[in-house]
């Protein structure tokens, strides 16, 4: 019964997302073409004559009318072909398939790290408002969010790589002496674990630590603030007073009743933070030479390379749809009272 309704929910939500995805496709397509750059001029090279530019325009198919280009684009999409990136010379599908796991791995790692610090900090701050823990949490989170990520990243590199020599050179996912693990999930840490290669896992983790800490510092703030606020709300509510009056232990009151009720807004925040981190950590990727999707899309945008940007936005939009669905399902698990209608 429950499983049936869950399945119905998933199918209904996915169907409802289709028009939104189509709208995303149309808008991205039009926006890219409305931008001032001209890809034909850009890719024809510095020395291009007008004829050379027209030749390139023809090769790129940009001499056709907009509706014609759009129909061709849709036809390719229907075949699962996201097109080819001119800046990197690879197909967009290949690039996204290799770069999305890199971004996912970094984001997940940073998120776990941020949660590990921000949740306890938020709970402690809520149980002792006005205490030193509360102030510490405020200072930490304010500092984390107000320092731009590229600054924190460069600072960490300067201290831990340049001065102390503890961290490896900021060279992306894996030092070139290693070869990546056989691809299963695309996440290097998980794949090396699956391959049972501890040394390789260590090498991957080493590369991950600094960028993950940089990102975690930045996203700790909203998580800790949200945890604190919703914990304060929960702790002040009637059912907690009742629980306390009934003589339940402090731990039970705090974790089973207050925290579980305070989780909903935190999960919502997490969803937002996650989607934000995945696509918008361009600066972290640039600083650590991390081959993620964000820097890929930005480079393509700067070069007015249409296909990668369109592919990126479409992938991101699909991911958001999935993510929102997961969060809605989580809602139901955390709080059975929540009924989600598609």
């Amino acid at each position, binding site marked *: 019964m429950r499983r049936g309704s869950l399945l119905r929910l998933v199918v209904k939500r996915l169907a409802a997302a289709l028009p939104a995805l189509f709208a995303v496709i149309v808008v991205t397509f039009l926006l890219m073409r409305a931008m001032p*750059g001209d890809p034909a001029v850009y*890719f024809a090279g510095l020395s291009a004559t007008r*004829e050379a530019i027209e030749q390139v325009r023809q090769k790129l198919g940009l001499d056709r009318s907009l509706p014609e280009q759009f129909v061709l684009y849709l036809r390719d999409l229907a075949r699962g072909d996201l097109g080819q990136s001119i800046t990197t*010379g690879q197909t967009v599908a290949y690039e996204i398939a290799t770069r999305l796991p890199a971004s996912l791995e970094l984001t997940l790692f940073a998120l776990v790290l941020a949660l590990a610090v921000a949740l306890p900090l938020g709970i402690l701050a809520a149980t002792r408002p006005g205490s030193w823990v509360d102030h510490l949490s405020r200072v930490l989170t304010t500092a984390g969010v107000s320092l731009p990520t590229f600054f924190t990243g460069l600072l960490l590199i300067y201290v831990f790589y340049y001065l102390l020599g*503890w961290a490896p050179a900021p*060279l992306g996912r894996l030092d070139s002496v290693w070869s990546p693990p056989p691809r299963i999930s695309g996440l290097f840490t998980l794949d090396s674990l699956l391959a049972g290669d501890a040394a390789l896992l260590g090498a991957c983790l*080493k590369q991950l630590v600094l960028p993950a800490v940089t990102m975690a510092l930045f996203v700790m703030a909203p998580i800790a603030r949200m945890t604190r606020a919703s914990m304060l709300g929960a702790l002040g509510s009637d059912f907690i007073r009742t629980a306390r009056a009934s003589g339940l232990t402090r731990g039970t009151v705090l974790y089973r009743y207050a925290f579980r009720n305070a989780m909903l807004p935190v999960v919502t925040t997490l969803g937002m933070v996650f989607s934000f981190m995945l696509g918008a950590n361009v600066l972290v990727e640039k600083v650590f030479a991390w*081959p993620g999707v964000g820097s890929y899309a930005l480079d393509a945008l700067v070069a007015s390379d249409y296909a990668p940007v369109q592919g990126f936005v479409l992938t991101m939009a699909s991911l958001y749809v999935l993510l929102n669905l997961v969060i809605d399902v989580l809602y139901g698990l955390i709080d059975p009272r929540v009924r989600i209608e598609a």
Partner: protein
Amino acid sequence: MRIARLLVTLFVVGGLAGHAAAQGRSDTLIVVTESGPNSMDIHGVGTNRPAYQASWNIYDRLMTFGVKTLPDGSRMYDYQSLKPELAESWQMAADGTSVTFKLRKDARFHDGTPVSAKDVKWSFDRAVTVGGFPTFQMKAGSLEKPEQFEVVDDTTFRVKFLRKDRFTMPDLAVPVPVIIHSELAKKHATAQDPWALEWLKTNVAASGAYKLESWKPGMETIYVRNEDWKSGPLPKIRRVIVREVPSAGNRRAMLERGDADVSFDLPPKDFSEMAKAGKVAVVSHPVENAHAYVGMNVTKPPFNNAKARQAVAYAIPYETIYSTALFGRGTLVTGNLIAVNTFGYDAKASPYRTDLAKAKQLMAEAGYPSGFETTLSFDMGFATTNEPMAVLLQESLAQIGIKTTINKIPGSNWRNMLLKKEMPLYINAFGGWLNFPEYFFFWNYHSQNAVFNTMSYQNPAMDKLIDAARFETDPKKYAEEVRGFLKLALDDVPRVAVYQPNLDVAMQKTIKGYQYWFHRQLDYRQLAKD
């Protein structure tokens, strides 16, 4: 707490392993670069500059340039001497209408197939046919039609000249005319793609000194020496790892820590500081036939007026730009158009210097005693030097009554804007591969109005001098013609050269053999590591 301990452990372990890897072996070279190649095919559409480096080291050309040592002990290619690469010798026809190349009999492609004249023909036919940059560059040396290329026998190849052009021979030694394994490439050609552009973008069919070991676009490219290379002395470096590190700060940190061997593309400030600190070697060469300049659109008021243009030339704060925007990493040229290492250079040629009184007087003579308003544009892609330069220029021009609004243009749109030729006042740079003054003037000042003639300058007297010099055989007359077009360009001053940029490279002191190339890419074949 436990997490903190875990982190510390990871850092420590990281530090140890990181170091072991970085020490490297003496026959492995680690290069760090801002961005890497996007193609292995120099003839492809949208092939970027780092791809020239890949192509240069993987492919062979018929000829290459010799080397000369400069007074400061540094080495550079010698544009006056052509040396054999795939061709072991060549012979000019007695009537001067063709050249015949003898190919090396022992030259092999990476798969072992002998290199033959039909490969050369296929490759050259491809370069003049595919359009875009390669075709343009071939044309610059009067190499325009497949009919010019003739297979005499397996190892003999002839190029017929369309006209007597002194650029033809050197143009056969630039990065474009690479020799491709035609049989291999043709296997991957299709009806729509007869030149196998698609396949050669990501695959190699070459005979050069290095083989492509692995290529991860956006991350790293690894090359390994071709042990059977016969077109020159076997390179000393066995393996080259080129890592893409987008952040300039990190590239510098890696060099200073000894984790990288070579880096180009650092901001001038970094090169200047590293040269002073002396930890790593910084080698500089003035880029030939190149300058950064202030351009003016001569088709529209106020810059259709030569006096107004001269006023700008007297108002540019040359010295300040040179020291604060460029940190002295270049050569100050105060208006002079022929570069220090190009034929016809004359330190006293330019009358211009910073003289605001004179500039004001010229403004009055031009009919703008109270000045005018305009916009000053620059390419954001080179904001490190362009932005301070624009601000200094704005400040100085304000003093002679020219009020400017700064217009920052994103790199992707810059070429588009240049092509439209509508910007009234802008900062730009130019560099030519072939180091001849008339080559520079032909692209920048000729009425053919190429994209590099950003000022839309058109003057029949100028064209006559450039065309005459281009095909001049009498050295005396040639020198006169060069002086002639230089003077004309300085008097009319549609653009004002401000400085000649340097090609700076930072490397470990153990790296030997570096030499400057006009294409400004690293040639792994000459390097050695102590």
